[in-house]
């Protein structure tokens, strides 16, 4: 009976018992019948039958026990034997265990990280596949728009052929007051449909009601789970009480389940849209949609494009920016997971390859082991061991190795997951990443599979051993038969090829990454500290109070020891995405009266902003302290803006009128604007600065951008402070905090980062890919080289006699060296050839990950191959050298 069916019989014990009981009963009945035929009374007959057989229950029990014991006994025998084998070959065992540990450890680590990032929470809702936000492209303005006007929203809402539902999302920073402690909270205004659109129900309480989503409706709020835990101690009685947000009372009506980060916020309030507003110029709302279930992405885009064309036809007359417009959408979940998905998928592939390499290595190790154990196996089968028993023995041995390795691998994972996560500070959900149950399951499956597969291969190979040949091969160093050799060679070639692919990918990634990190950002991120302050409405009511605060603060910050320059700006560099979606309409003096409205991104800054950021001045001047409310309005524009609007002339001295259409900043409709209505809308270009990356270092192209002096335009409530220092900028944090709080002791300082850190976070996904690919590449090459070394070494050992004969016949050492080197180099170059062609495919995949990459970077590939070739040469050289030291006499006598 096979191992499996015997194992299964443990679980079938009950059924077995029933069979047996019935069989014993039949037996007793037959005996009793015969007894009666011989003249016994019925009772006597039965008693006799029972006496002869014994108690059926006890009998059954004994038999079951014997079964289990026997099975356990033989397995235990195999295990003990396996352990003894391992102790006899400590080098082999350690090697095998490490190989499996590396494979399982690396695989499980990455699997855990991927599992956490892509699956857990993270805005992954039941509907996240279809939950998206709409954006529009206005080519006339060189602008991508994520905000829409109310009439546009009304029309989008009326498109049942594309969307199942539509809703509004607008994020803002609110100040939440709990027990007199203010906290800046990421809040989102949403329409009543948005939470149902995600397919998630509140954990406690309810969603908003339609009547709460009308202008003038009651002020209600839904809390995120984490906020509820953090600020309200998870107290369910918070429900239906009032909380203080931005100096208004909101009634809490619901609490969302954990890890619900709709639009990155922790608190939601109804948008209360005024549907009567028909202003087609004031873009203020972001539109969330739930795609129809039956539409593919291209189909939905095609239908949206039909709509965009209709809008162009209907409105381009009054709103020229509609000319040639495009409408599309992006998936919110994918945005949250951002570039990580591709990176992680590529890494998963790399891990898969690494596991393949370690499997191949283990297989080839066990195979060579099997070859040296052929005599043992032949002896055992001569002594009558059945083939199944030998196979089982080998599989058990391989399973012991793989389980030790797998266990070690899982331990590595526990340490490896935090290590992997720490490489990428911005990884969504990173800190929550642990060994996930799914990953653990995969690890176990991987372990068992490795153990069984690579126990079976050599097992069947040994089991097929023909006794006579095995014995004839003599001496304990029996070699592999032809098929065994071929299998091992294939494994080694595959290992080299696969590790070449990983290595090529890694080197390519590094090269590209270096290119990217040397990319001209347009600013100098080194030694810059950034932090945010939010001036609460309760204490800073008037726009002039905001300006005044910074007017008084700046000299103090400037005077701090170690500070070279200090500045204030709207929009946290690299961090605040609103910079790219808040833009200012304007009119060029020379084109006044035209309907076409240009616009540009903008920042409101204090004079030293450019010096802190390290932005180059291309013409004119930076701002200075004279650019205040008493002097004429000025503006500094970036290179893109200068080229776009004054392609042939000098922009310096040109005038433009801000807010031509709406006459107001439309940066953030809910932030109080510091600009007085009396501020002169006319500004003169006084300087041109170099383009600077605005958000998301790599992918997003630079838009036209203008800079306005804070002392002329007023301040927002949320402002970012920037410091350039000669010292480690982090050391400034406390001094800056003190300076700020000497003006306003209750003002919290938050989002403290160095600019370096923010830039490097923007590289996060790429860096993760790079580091891990490199790690896998090096691991893969190490494993492959070990495999090659082992093959050559074994071949030397097997051919000792042949070498002895050759030497006795006059072969020189160099001939022997060449002969043995050829073994390794042939396999190595075959592996490189195969790997090379596979690498072409791999680099094509990598191109999807990085922009600006050579399609096939032949230089890189050549370098990688050369490097690998040298390593292969060394791996074949050492064992070959040993061949030249063979003493011909000793080799010939050895028999």
């Amino acid at each position: 009976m096979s191992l499996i069916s015997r194992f299964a019989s443990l679980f079938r014990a009950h059924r077995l018992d029933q069979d047996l009981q019935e069989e014993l009963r039949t037996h007793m009945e037959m005996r009793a019948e015969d007894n009666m035929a011989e003249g016994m009374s019925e009772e006597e007959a039965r008693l006799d039958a029972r006496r002869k057989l014994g108690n059926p229950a006890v009998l059954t029990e004994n038999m079951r026990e014997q079964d289990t014991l026997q099975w356990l006994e033989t397995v235990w025998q195999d295990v003990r034997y396996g352990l003894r084998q391992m102790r006899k070959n400590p080098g082999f065992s350690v090697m095998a265990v490490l190989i499996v540990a590396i494979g399982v450890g690396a695989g499980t680590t990455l699997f855990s990280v991927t599992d956490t990032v892509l699956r857990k929470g993270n805005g992954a809702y039941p509907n996240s596949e279809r939950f998206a936000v709409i954006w529009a492209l206005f080519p006339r303005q060189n602008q991508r728009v994520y905000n829409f006007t109310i009439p546009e929203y009304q029309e989008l809402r009326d498109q049942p052929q594309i969307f199942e539902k539509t809703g509004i999302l607008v994020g803002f920073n609110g100040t939440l007051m709990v027990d007199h402690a203010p906290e800046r909270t990421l809040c989102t205004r949403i329409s009543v449909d948005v939470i149902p659109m995600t397919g998630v129900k509140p954990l406690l309480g309810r969603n908003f009601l339609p009547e709460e989503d009308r202008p003038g409706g009651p002020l209600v709020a839904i809390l995120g789970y984490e906020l509820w835990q953090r600020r309200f101690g998870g107290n369910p009685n918070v429900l239906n009480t009032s909380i203080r947000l931005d100096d208004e009372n909101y009634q809490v009506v619901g609490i969302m389940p954990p890890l619900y980060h709709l639009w990155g916020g922790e608190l939601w309030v109804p948008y209360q849209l005024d549907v009567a507003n028909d202003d087609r110029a004031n873009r203020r709302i972001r539109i969330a949609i739930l795609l129809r279930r039956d539409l593919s992405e291209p189909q939905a885009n095609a239908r949206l494009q039909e709509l965009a064309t209709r809008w162009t036809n209907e409105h381009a007359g009054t709103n020229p920016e509609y000319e040639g417009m495009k409408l599309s959408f992006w998936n919110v979940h994918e945005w949250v997971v951002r570039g990580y998905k591709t990176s992680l998928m590529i890494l998963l592939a790399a891990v898969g390859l690494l596991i393949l390499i370690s499997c191949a290595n283990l297989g080839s190790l066990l195979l060579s082991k099997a070859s040296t154990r052929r005599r043992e196996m032949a002896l055992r089968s001569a002594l009558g061991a059945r083939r199944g028993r030998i196979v089982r023995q080998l599989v058990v041995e391989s399973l012991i190795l793989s389980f030790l390795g797998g266990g070690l691998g899982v331990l590595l994972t526990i340490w490896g997951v935090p290590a992997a996560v720490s490489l990428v500070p911005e990884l969504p959900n990173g800190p929550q990443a642990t060994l996930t149950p799914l990953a653990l399951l995969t690890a176990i499956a991987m372990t068992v599979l490795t153990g069984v597969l690579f126990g079976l291969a050599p097992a069947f190979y040994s089991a097929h051993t023909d006794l006579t040949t095995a014995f004839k091969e003599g001496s304990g160093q029996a070699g592999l038969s032809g098929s065994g050799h071929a299998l091992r060679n294939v494994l080694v070639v595959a290992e080299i090829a696969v590790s070449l692919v990983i290595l090529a990918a890694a080197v390519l990634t590094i090269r590209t990454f270096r290119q990217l990190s040397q990319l001209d950002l347009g600013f100098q991120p080194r030694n810059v500290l950034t932090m945010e302050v939010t001036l609460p409405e309760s204490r800073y009511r008037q726009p002039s109070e905001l300006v005044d605060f910074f007017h008084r603060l700046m000299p103090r910050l400037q005077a701090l020891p170690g500070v070279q320059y200090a500045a204030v700006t709207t929009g946290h560099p690299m961090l605040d995405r609103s910079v790219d979606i808040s833009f200012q309409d304007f009119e060029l003096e020379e084109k006044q009266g035209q309907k076409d409205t240009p616009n540009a991104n903008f920042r409101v800054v204090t004079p030293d902003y450019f010096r802190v950021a390290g932005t180059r001045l291309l013409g004119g001047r930076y701002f200075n302290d004279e650019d205040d409310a008493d002097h004429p309005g000025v503006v500094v524009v970036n290179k893109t803006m200068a080229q776009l609007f004054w392609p042939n002339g000098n922009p310096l001295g040109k005038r433009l009128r801000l807010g031509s259409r709406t006459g107001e900043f439309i940066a953030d409709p809910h932030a109080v604007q510091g600009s007085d209505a009396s501020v002169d809308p006319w500004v003169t270009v006084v300087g041109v600065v170099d383009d600077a990356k605005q958000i998301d270092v790599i992918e997003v192209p630079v838009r036209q951008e203008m800079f306005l002096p804070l002392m002329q335009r007023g301040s927002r409530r949320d402002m970012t402070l920037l410091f350039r220092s000669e010292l480690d900028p982090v050391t400034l944090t406390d001094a800056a905090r003190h300076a700020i709080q000497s003006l306003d002791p209750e003002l919290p300082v938050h989002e403290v980062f160095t600019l370096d850190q923010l830039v490097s976070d923007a590289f996060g996904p790429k860096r993760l890919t790079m580091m891990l690919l490199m790690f896998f590449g090096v691991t893969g090459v190490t494993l492959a080289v070990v495999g090659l070394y082992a093959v050559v070494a074994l071949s030397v050992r097997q051919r000792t006699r042949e070498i002895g004969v050759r030497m006795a016949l006059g072969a020189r050492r160099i001939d022997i060296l060449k002969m043995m080197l050829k073994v390794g180099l042939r396999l190595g170059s075959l592996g490189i050839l195969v790997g090379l062609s596979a690498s072409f495919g791999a680099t094509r995949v990598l191109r999807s990950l990085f922009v600006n990459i050579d399609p096939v970077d032949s230089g890189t590939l050549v370098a990688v191959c050369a490097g690998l070739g040298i390593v292969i040469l060394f791996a074949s050289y050492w064992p070959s050298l040993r061949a030249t030291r063979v003493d011909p006499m000793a080799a010939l006598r050895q028999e």
Partner: protein
Amino acid sequence: MAPKDHLSGTLDLLILKTLAQAGPIHGYGIVLYIQRVSDDLLRVEEGSLYPALHRIEQSGWITAEWRTSKNNRRARYYKLTPAGRRQLAKEEQSWDRVVQGVASVLRFA
């Protein structure tokens, strides 16, 4: 196969031989057959018959199936497998050797 205690293996040998001779047969039938063929010299310990059958079945030398007996009773019928046939040949050989061995010892004793 490791050397075996041949005397305790005797029951196995008898069972295998019985099945070879008498074809598919149930447990009670084995008892009766051995008793009859040995002219009442050998009586199988019924309590050890079933553990032995079970062990031999586990070794893959015999198989069993439920059938209805002549007098309409459901019984478990045992049958030799090819592996069992080979095993029987082996055990018969080694039994012969044991008998020879024991006989020669007795002759010289």
